[in-house]
C-alpha cells in the first residue's frame, strides 16, 4: 500500500512531510475513509471522553480494512456499517474499562440533573432539563443509544436496524418499547 505524501520545504530550509492525499492501494477504502471520517468521529466524540476518540476512530477503520470484503458497497449502508463498528468498538472499550456508558454520564454531568429515583414524589411533572435528563438517565444504555442515534445521528428506523443488526420490524419494536418505557417513567414522575 502506498500512501502519497507531499514534501514541503519550510522557509528555514527544513523539510517535513504531510499526507497529500488519502491514496492507498485500496481506493474504495480511501473513499470510504474520506466520506465517513467526520461522521464516525462525531459519533464517537459524543459517546466517549476526548482522549479515547482517536483510538476508537482508528480501530473502527482498522476493522473496516480487515473486513473490507464484507462491507456493502452502497455508500449510505457503508456509513451505517461503520457506525455499527464504532458502536461495537465503544462497547468493547466500556467493557474493558469496566465503566458505564459514558453517554449517560456525560449527559448527567452536562445537565447536572438528579437521577430519576432521587426526584421528590411531589414534584409536578413538566418538561424541564432536569426531569427530561432524569428520564433519559434512567433508561438502559441500549435504550439511550437508540434515542441518541435518532436525535444526534438523525437515524431512521431502517438505519437503526442496520446499526443494531436487527430486522426493520425488530428495530421498530425496540423503538416502541423505548417509547413505552419513557411513558411509564413520565407517568411515574407525574404520580
Amino acid at each position, binding site marked *: *500500500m502506498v500512501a502519497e505524501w507531499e514534501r514541503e520545504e519550510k522557509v528555514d530550509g527544513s523539510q517535513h512531510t504531510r499526507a497529500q492525499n488519502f491514496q492507498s492501494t485500496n481506493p474504495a477504502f480511501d473513499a470510504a*475513509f474520506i466520506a465517513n471520517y467526520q461522521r464516525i468521529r462525531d459519533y464517537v466524540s459524543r459517546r466517549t471522553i476526548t482522549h479515547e476518540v482517536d483510538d476508537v476512530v482508528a480501530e473502527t477503520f482498522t476493522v473496516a480494512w480487515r473486513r473490507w470484503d464484507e462491507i456493502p458497497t452502497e455508500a449510505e449502508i457503508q456509513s451505517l456499517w461503520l457506525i455499527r463498528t464504532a458502536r461495537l468498538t465503544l462497547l468493547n472499550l466500556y467493557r474493558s474499562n469496566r465503566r458505564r456508558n459514558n453517554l449517560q454520564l456525560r449527559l448527567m454531568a452536562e445537565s447536572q440533573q438528579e437521577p430519576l429515583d432521587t426526584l421528590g414524589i411531589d414534584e409536578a411533572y413538566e418538561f424541564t432539563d432536569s426531569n427530561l435528563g432524569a428520564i433519559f438517565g434512567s433508561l438502559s444504555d441500549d435504550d439511550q443509544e437508540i434515542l441518541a442515534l435518532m436525535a444526534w445521528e438523525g437515524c431512521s428506523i431502517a438505519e437503526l436496524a442496520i446499526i443494531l443488526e436487527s430486522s426493520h420490524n425488530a428495530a*421498530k419494536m425496540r423503538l416502541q418499547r423505548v417509547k413505552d418505557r419513557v411513558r411509564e417513567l413520565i407517568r411515574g414522575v407525574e404520580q
Partner: protein
Amino acid sequence: MSDNDSRRNELDPLESFELIEWLKTRDPLLGQPTQPPVNEDPVAQRIYAQVVQEQNRNVPHDATGKRPKSWYAKRLLVPVLVAATLLLSAAALLRTKPAVDLTQVGCYNVASLVDASVVVLPLEKSPIAQCREAWQNPEYKEVFSQERIPSLATCVLEGGVVGVFPNEPPNVCERLGLAVWDEDLEPAELQQELVSRITSQFLDKCLALSDGAQIARNELEALGLSGWTVTVAPASEPEFVCASLAFDWAASSITIVPIANLWVD
C-alpha cells in the same frame, strides 16, 4: 393521514416526542468549532496513516483490495507495509536479545519512520550500496522519485533491522532516535557466506520454526562453526508461525524469529 404524515411516522415515530427534541439540544457537539475538511485535517491524516500501517503489517493488498500472489518473491513494492513488518520483526527480536538482522535491508525514501515508503531487499552487500542501486532502479521509481540520490546513512532500527535513510540534513539516525550502523558489523567473508547460505533457504516461503532451526544448524555444521548456537525465540503472537532469523555475531548465535505468514494466498 397523508402519505407524508405516514412516511414521517414510519421514519420517526418519536419525532414529536419531547425527549428526542430535548436530546437534540443536548448534543455534546453543539457549539464545538467546525472541523476542517478531512483532506486538511492533520488528525484525520494521522489516523489514516495509522490504520494503513497497522494493516500493512500482515496483509498486503493490491489495487483491487486482494492480496497479490508471490508479492515477496517478485520483490514487489512493499512500502509502508514492510516498514511495519520490519518493526514487527524488530519488536520480536528486541524481546529476545540485541542482534543485527543481516538478512534484509529497508531502503527508505524519506527520513521518517512514519511517513516513508520503503523498499525491502535481501541484504547482499553493503546496505548503502544496495539502497543506492534501489534508488536508481526504475522498478522503484514511484518510491524514489527524487531527481538525485541524496546522501544516505545506515541506521539500526529498534531490534536490529537495518534501514537506510536520506541523510539530509545529517545525523538522521540520531534524529529518528535510532542506533547508528556500526561498520564493524559489516559481514566478513565467512559471515557473508553464512548469511547467504542460510537466508536463501528462508526467502519466499513460510518455513516452520523447527525447520528453520534445523536449516541453521545444518549450515553452521557445514561451515565448521561448531561454537555457534541456534535458539528459537518465543512467538509474540499465535499467528507468528513462520521463521525469520537474526544473527548475533558477538554471541555467535542465530535466533529463529517467529513472524506472520506473509506468503499465504
